[in-house]
């Protein structure tokens, strides 16, 4: 049976991918600006040793995160990951912040390439959906669904 969750649309679009959960907020700068990220196949590999996603690759995944920590280089990272289709398929965030949204907005406005971002409580999704299970984000209607 399919499970649906209402969400506030932050950035429009529809996408699908395996869910990747964390209850720890993500610092996109710390995650993706390490020497290892120089390698083309590790562009989307998390290299933040303070985060449980350390060594996890986010390409094509639907990220389910409580919040983004920053820093202000988040836009540098997300702009390239999104416009080159190297990044996450969509982001579900407990509380959207300026830095997370900016990177995707830059790609959308200047390169016409975007991913949906929606805001909603992530605990109910984490309880009902397994890590790696395919999840759909509808940033136009404001719905997250799985199964």
């Amino acid at each position, binding site marked *: 049976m399919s499970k649906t969750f209402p969400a506030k649309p932050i950035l429009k679009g529809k996408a699908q991918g395996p869910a990747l959960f964390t209850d720890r907020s993500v610092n996109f700068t710390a995650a993706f600006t390490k020497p290892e990220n120089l390698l083309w196949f590790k562009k989307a590999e998390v290299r933040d040793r303070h985060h449980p996603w350390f060594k996890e690759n986010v390409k094509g995944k639907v990220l389910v995160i409580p*919040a983004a920590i*920053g820093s202000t280089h988040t836009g540098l990272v997300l702009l390239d990951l999104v416009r080159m289709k190297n990044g996450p398929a969509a982001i579900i965030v407990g509380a959207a912040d300026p830095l997370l949204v900016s990177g995707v907005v830059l790609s959308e406005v200047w390169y016409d390439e975007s991913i949906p971002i929606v805001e909603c409580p992530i605990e109910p999704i984490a309880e009902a959906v397994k890590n790696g299970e395919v999840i759909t984000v509808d940033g136009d209607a404001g719905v997250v669904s799985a199964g």
Partner: protein
Amino acid sequence: MDLTADQQAILNGSEGPEMALAMKTLVRYGESFDAQRLVPIKSAHLTGSFAISTYTGYYELLGKLVDAGVKVKVPTTINPRPGYDFSMQNRLIAFRKQKHHEDQLAKLGVTGNYSCVTYHTANVPEFGDILGWAESSAVVYANSVAGARTNRNSIMVDICMAVTGLTPEFGLLFDEHRKGNVLIKLDIEEMDDDAVGFIIGQSLVDKVPVLTHYPFDKVQLKNLGATMAAAGGVGLYHVVGVTPECPSLDAVFDKEPEQTITITQKDIDAIRWDRQKQGTAGMVVFGCPQMTLDEVKDVGRHFVGKTVTKRTLFHIVPSDYEELRKLPLHDQLVEAGVELFTHCPLAGLTVRLTPKNRHVITNSGKLHYYLEGGEYGNLDDVLRVAGVK
């Protein structure tokens, strides 16, 4: 969003397609947070000072604006240089296009102060000013210690603000988002502001922490905020009786705090690198954010008349470094073996090829958070590892 006739005209292309996209970026950014309008900013501060060779989009966009002859409309300062000449790998690989990038920024009309401590002398905000700033450590200082108002803005969005002189009105620009959420009590014997900031950052995200009274000085407020911002996305904090919007707890709490956290001496000591391993550090690093002259004097006095036994790096605000050069302390530090730099330690040290330098020890909570192999020590620890205590 409600745009003025002038703003709408720019969005429609009156100042060219590049300015239209810069305006559209601010509109889309603002709409995502239900902003109703764009408001004028007094200054901008840009975070994107490094030519990071693995990324291209940001530099392309900057190039489009420069090629179109676009200039900043408000005073605009910029973050530190990355240490282009610090190592061969920085010069040849990591930041090989640095010189070109700095030329581009100059063409845009950016003031080349090259410091993250921009609020110290280059771009001094006043109480109540609306700013379009990036660089998380500068944002948190401007909001908390100066009482100015800026959101935590992204790289490139900061340039869109600088060239339009505008920012979307939401978040920390409004009184209701400047109230405290979390009360922080300190139960410690010896202050270590970076460790306190690190613990606060790790305990909460995107909240406004309020610390009970402690007579922090300006340098401590800088380092405390920078570490909170790095580890926890904090854009504003208050200290009772110290920061301007917080004369008392009542001034910042309308209701009971959502949460109360007590930080103990044990918590602070737990951040420090294992004492047994500290001696294996390849070098000792100070200055993230960059050291002001006061900080150089305060830390530097421990080195006068001694000689370091481990490579020791100071990273200093460029204008303060020029002041330092006029003082006897400059030669005394050089004599002691301290290496004096004006670039960003994080950028400078990110690509370290020699295994000997795998671990460094630093008293900067922010650098500890960001740098792979960057271990934390309090001031006593790092002075001991440097061989001067």
